[in-house]
């Protein structure tokens, strides 16, 4: 179940961060990427992407065997 949901969580979170990045570029005064409220979800996002990558690599290696 987790393996099926994980790519969607990564995808959705990536889109959220892309939107925030665009807003920050358009209006730097909003400081979308510089405040503490950004740092925690971004850290979680990094962990999720790392986990998803490991899961994908392991699965690919299993499929090759």
């Amino acid at each position, binding site marked *: 179940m987790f393996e099926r949901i994980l790519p*969607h*969580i990564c*995808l*959705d*979170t990536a*889109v*959220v961060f892309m*939107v*925030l990045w665009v807003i920050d*570029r*358009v*209006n*730097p*005064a*909003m*400081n*979308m990427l*510089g*405040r503490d*409220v*950004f740092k925690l*979800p971004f850290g979680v996002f990094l962990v999720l992407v790392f986990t998803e990558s490991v899961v994908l690599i392991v699965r690919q290696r299993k499929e090759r065997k």
Partner: protein
Amino acid sequence: MSLPLVVFLDLLCIAVGLNVFAWFHHVRDAYFPRETAEVDPVVLITPSPAPTPVPESTPTPVPEDDEPERVYSGVWGEKFADRFTDGEVIRTENSYRSANVSVTLTHVEREGLSYHVADIYISDLKYLRSAFGEKGYGSRSMAADIASANDAVIAISGDYYSARREGIVVRNGLLYRDTRFEDVCVLLGDGRMLTLSDRETDLEALTQAAPWQVWSFGPRLLENGKAMTKFNSAVVRKNPRSAIGYVEPGHYYFVQVDGRGAYGSHGMTMTELAELFESLGCETAYNLDGGQTAGMCWDGELISFPYGRSVSDIIYITDSPENGEG
């Protein structure tokens, strides 16, 4: 699970994620302000930078039927004598005159645009001040509440310094923060106002110049009194605006522009704002935080479109500087 349903659920998650972020980023603090950290500001200039001059010689007695010699208050009291009164306060619907302050408010309305211009003369720099939210540095309050608490004759929203960690903050001669952020507006102790681009801002020299106020938002709008055509900002389209202009020491302008459809006004582009300040005869002018932050208060009442966003600071003119911060 069908593909359209999966896509729908993903989009739903993205929307929820963005709204949760927006709540924590800038909605929560507006409705549930948190306690602010104590900051020990550095004194750059005394709160009354230009003391009232004392007449050098003892006035000679004058015959009773002659008018007594007028004593001007403040360093610019004589220069702008025709703008000030002998001591009485004359207040009308759109003007305020006293011995030290003269403000004339103009509301311009034309198709697709509504804005206010305040023409300001002061006899001494201490009558042009900044104020933070009601709990001090770092806090946020409604602009009208801050204006009322500081006896502001007229006030506009400031640079919203608390939305960022960067940007030099000097208010009423006190240095609160000295990090770099975009273009800078400096109001010096002698009443001159300078606008500096991000590249030419020397923080050390700036603090040594003993500024009375420094705002960090921008962009700067005029170059040698002429409207600039390129701005250090990505938000140059039509927008609600708040800005300050400088003609000469003691003579300033506040401008606030409604936008986003409020009162039928769609706001001003940065070019239009710069051209407005050029037409007012300003030497320098500086854009402050706009959008939903932009607001102007007259006699403690919000006269711009009431967006309802709390702000971290205002710039204001007062006849009672002793009641202000700093």
